[in-house]
């Protein structure tokens, strides 16, 4: 989304740079486009009078996003050295399992992560265990294995920096990532 906006912005800038025409002598037309909405989702800029310099963002990732957003948080946190899904995260897994089962074409990656302690490869294997724990829990709820891939980032992609327990607790996690 942000990248697309950026690309549009850069293209506009470059177009501006390319000509030697004085900008204030050029009549500005109102060409603000109609938002393209997929799956009936309303674009944010749809209503109201658009400013003349307005840019309408097109979000190709919007399809079905509402259902995913409605399913709520996507992160399951784990205790140190543990791969057990704590009861308070069962509802997250259930909500996303419903979304995934509701669309046979939907592909999801469960991305396992660890805190910074220990070796990179061993942590990759630990993160894999966490990801597979979530995948198995979804499997028990009827989500087909073919729609879910369990992968690991080990300790390479911490959510929080710092070496205190609060940061490390945020990093021991599995993220449900819609692809």
């Amino acid at each position: 989304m942000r990248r697309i906006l950026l690309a549009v912005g850069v293209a506009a800038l470059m177009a501006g740079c390319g000509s030697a025409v004085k900008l204030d002598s050029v009549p500005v037309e109102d060409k603000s486009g109609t938002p393209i909405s997929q799956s009936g989702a309303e674009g944010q800029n749809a209503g109201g009078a658009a400013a003349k310099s307005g840019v309408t963002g097109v979000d190709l990732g919007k399809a079905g996003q509402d259902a995913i957003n409605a399913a709520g948080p996507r992160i399951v946190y784990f205790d140190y050295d543990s791969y057990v899904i704590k009861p308070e995260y069962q509802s997250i897994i259930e909500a996303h399992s419903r979304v995934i089962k509701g669309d046979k074409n939907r592909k999801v990656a469960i991305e396992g992560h660890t805190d910074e302690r220990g070796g990179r490869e061993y942590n990759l294997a630990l993160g894999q265990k966490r990801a597979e724990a979530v995948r198995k829990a979804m499997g028990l709820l009827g989500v087909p294995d073919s729609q879910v891939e369990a992968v690991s980032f080990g300790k390479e992609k911490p959510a929080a920096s710092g070496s205190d327990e609060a940061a490390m607790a945020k990093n021991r996690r599995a993220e449900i990532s819609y692809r």
Partner: protein
Amino acid sequence: MNSSLFFSLARYFNRGLVGFLLASSLSAWAQFRVEVSGVGLTQLPIAVANFRGDDSAPQKMAAIIRADLERSGQFRSIDTGSSVIDEVARPEVSVWRQKGADSLVTGSVTRLADGRYDVRFRLWDVVRAQGQDLGGQSFPVAAGDLRLAAHRISDIIYEKLTGEKGIFSTRIAYVTKASQRYNLWVADSDGENAQTALTSPEPIISPAWSPNGTQLAYVSFESRKPVVYAHDVASGKRRLIANFRGSNSAPVWSPDGRTLAVTLSRDGGSQLYTIDANGGEPRRLIQSSGIDTEPVYSPDGRNIFFVSDRGGAPQIYRTSATGGNVERVTFTGGYNISPAISPDGRWLAYISRVNGAFKLHVMELATGTTTAITDTTADESPSFAPNGRLVVYATQQQGKEALMTSTLDGKIKARLGGQSGDIREPDWGPFQKP
């Protein structure tokens, strides 16, 4: 030891400062900082006089050779002051003997008409009354290969005086992370002359040299999951080795270069497989209900050491290269990972957690005798030099990641510094063909 090294380096930086700063580029921050933090017992005292032409050449031959020899732990550098002696001169051996030197290195670096440089050296035994000429050599090289010529000279001196092959002209691969960019580097064994093999916005881990030193296998997360590639260093051509469902990681080459061992999760759990280096279907090596990862071949290719939590906590095990005969290797401590085997098969380097600290250990495999060889607390990824005399590893110093080399007894250490980014995942390459 400490002071003589300090002075020789200080001299190097004084003389080399301008060129050093002018040459500073993307790779400049990845230069070596030699910090000797221990005292060796039997070191050969050697004087390396400044080469004739060193002051006008792009690289200072004598300084490179001195730093090489000191880092090896086998040599003690004798201060040569501002002496300039070329390979043609007959040195006054008594002067050098009085300074405590057993050997003297002399030489020259001369710019040739075609723009290349002719680097020459001669090694003297100054213990003999008249001094004995131990031989010399000439290297006509491009300016860009001056450092390599100096490392080759260090290799010749090292082999002549210790009877073992030197590792100074070998290469080390490592990974840096700076402002969310990951770089895979190939550097000389002293960390200088670093060149980027791969730049990525996503993590790169576990680089592993092929036995002939032409390719690196590694794990890249560029497709939002761990995937194993093999990368031809000279051409930059990459090919997929393992991109199966789930995670693909921990690549290592068999000693004959025909096979890679990897960790795959495609059948559930992190498990060991072997794959033909030319691609193809992976073969399951062994099976466990837990984690099996970090495979590494024994130098004879018959065994694979690996890490497994089959006993409840990560320990190092050994299996035959075709699977089967699994035996446990580490018994002390509750967290032992990242095995590396010395080229002669005698030593196992690995990381052990001791009271919450991750420390590099060396085990003599025949006896099981184990020694912790660092005083740091976040050691990772040990890798042996091809002559088995040094280990390179990643660690943290003052909260910053650093690469270190150490002798196997832990007495002589040198640091490969990274100023503006984290530096990790070293892998020491094989001997290069001259």
